[in-house]
């Protein structure tokens, strides 16, 4: 879905800029998010993802450019817009002085819901995020994954038009991540518009219909995960890992193994449409890597191509 196809995007940004003093955190980015879409910001730490999300969440004033959320201007209608957003911040901001259920009830009250409405909604959401048995517990003893789920339940309390998730699964173990992804996928199925930031390629591939890659405060590429991989990478990648010190002696011996060679500190990546053939070619040249791995191209490769460095650095 390109920006022009949708006449009224839920989020519309043009030349959106955020500066903190002299430092430019977000540098004139353009993007649109359509209703029902699942949209991602992919990029390393410090790329400007969180600053962009905070502006969209109406908790950070726009320095320059245009930003419209649900057709409204955050500078004018901040509280009204916030009333229709659900926010999952990067760090949990659960109320540690309240029980699990009261966290939701009180949060519902902040949105102006009645007590009865707040309680009903809280109980339904505790079921949805599988925390009903912990309703009366304090927040502190919950595991990281449980806290994340409670934060997501809290973000859903007002039936938001847009759910903003800033690195929703950072720091979670694989099991907790998959449970969370499952819940987010269900929301997506229900038609909730998701906007998320992540530095995990698998997360972006799982959840995002469309994403932008951010680096150094700018958007460097935009498309669906598949489009990005097709545009910026090859179908397959052959990873060659050599014994310590060997890689440095390989000058001139790697060229031509694939369409493109990327040399990382710990391994060599050979980009081609046939990974096995590239591995065989390396073997024929007498190269003896300690391990050979052929895999599909991922967004990590896209990012590497676009910025010359790996995503989590």
């Amino acid at each position, binding site marked *: 879905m390109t920006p022009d196809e949708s006449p009224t995007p839920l989020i519309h940004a043009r030349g959106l800029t955020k500066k903190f003093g002299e430092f430019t955190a977000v540098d004139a980015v353009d993007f649109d998010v359509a209703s029902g879409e699942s949209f991602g910001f992919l990029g390393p730490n410090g790329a400007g993802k969180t600053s962009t999300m905070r502006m969209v969440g109406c908790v950070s*004033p726009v320095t320059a450019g245009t930003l419209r959320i649900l057709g409204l201007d955050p500078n004018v209608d901040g509280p009204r817009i916030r009333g229709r957003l659900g926010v999952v*911040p990067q760090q949990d901001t659960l109320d540690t002085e*309240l029980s699990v259920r009261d966290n939701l*009830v009180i949060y519902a009250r902040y*949105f102006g819901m009645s007590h009865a409405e707040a309680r009903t909604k809280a109980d339904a959401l505790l079921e949805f995020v599988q925390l009903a048995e912990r309703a009366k517990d304090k927040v502190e003893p919950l595991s990281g994954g449980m806290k994340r789920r409670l934060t997501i339940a809290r973000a859903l309390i007002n039936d938001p038009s847009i759910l903003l998730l800033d690195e929703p699964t950072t720091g979670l173990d694989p099991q907790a991540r998959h449970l969370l992804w499952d819940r987010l996928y269900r929301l997506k199925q229900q038609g909730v518009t998701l906007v998320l930031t992540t530095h995990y390629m698998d997360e972006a591939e799982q959840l995002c219909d469309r994403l932008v890659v951010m680096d150094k405060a700018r958007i460097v590429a935009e498309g669906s995960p598949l489009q990005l991989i097709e545009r910026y990478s090859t179908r397959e990648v052959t990873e060659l890992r050599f014994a310590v010190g060997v890689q440095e002696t390989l000058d001139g011996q790697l060229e031509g193994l694939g369409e493109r060679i990327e040399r990382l500190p710990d391994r060599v990546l050979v980009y081609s449409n046939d990974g096995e053939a590239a591995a065989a070619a390396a073997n024929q040249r007498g190269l003896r890597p300690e391990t050979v791995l052929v895999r599909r191209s991922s967004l990590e490769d896209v990012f590497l191509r676009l910025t010359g460095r790996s995503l989590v650095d």
Partner: protein
Amino acid sequence: MTALLAAQRVLPIGLGGRRAWLLIERNLFVYRSGWLVLLSGFFEPLFYLLSIGFGIGGMVGDVPGPNGELIPYAVFVAPALLATASMNGAIAESTFNVFFKLNYAKTYDAVLSTPMAPGDVALGEIGWAVIRSSLYAIGFMVVILVMQLVQSPWAVFAIPAAMLMSFAFAAVGMAATTFMRSWQDFDLINIVIMPLFLFSGTFFPITSYPPALQLVVALTPLYQGVDLLRSLILGHIDATLLFHVVYLVVMGLAGLAVVARRLDRLLLK
């Protein structure tokens, strides 16, 4: 409460304030399960009264009251203990608790992701501090009424006066808290509170000071409350009480305005 409503009108519209009571409700939820903690504030002035009012008072004997006639020392000191307790209650709630929520629990970050605004947080926390210390004020008034330390029907105004005091101190305390960088900075609050507690006409009349010093003390914040409450409880009514009221209202509104703006700068950057 009238002061709070007035404050609401003075606050800039964009900073909010209408949803403040939802934050008060949040605090009520917190103490619903830990209401025993709330009792501590009731005992503080009571213990001072027993120790200093009656204990030391027994050695001091009668002292001249605001009307000039001799009164037992406990009668003299009781209203000042109410004033002090209102100050301490307001300061404790608006400094330590707020600092924790602001910097560690990130409570307000979550609150501001909703339609709530910084003005709601400011007014809510200060309003809560006022509610909490007015409960103590009511409790303490009942105690001194039973002990026959109240000498005038004007004393019914002592409770709203104590609430006004806690509003003023909570607002300024919370304003100061928004500038604090670490727990060490709270020593600065003690450096201010301690001398106020000891020298504001609390335990002896300020006429004991040389005239120049009297004037200085008469302009400090706790003295306004001490003199206001003592005058009401002992029935010494004159125009200076109006000055005390205006002083405390202005102090509270100024604090409130600073808090709302500081929260806006700290949390919505």
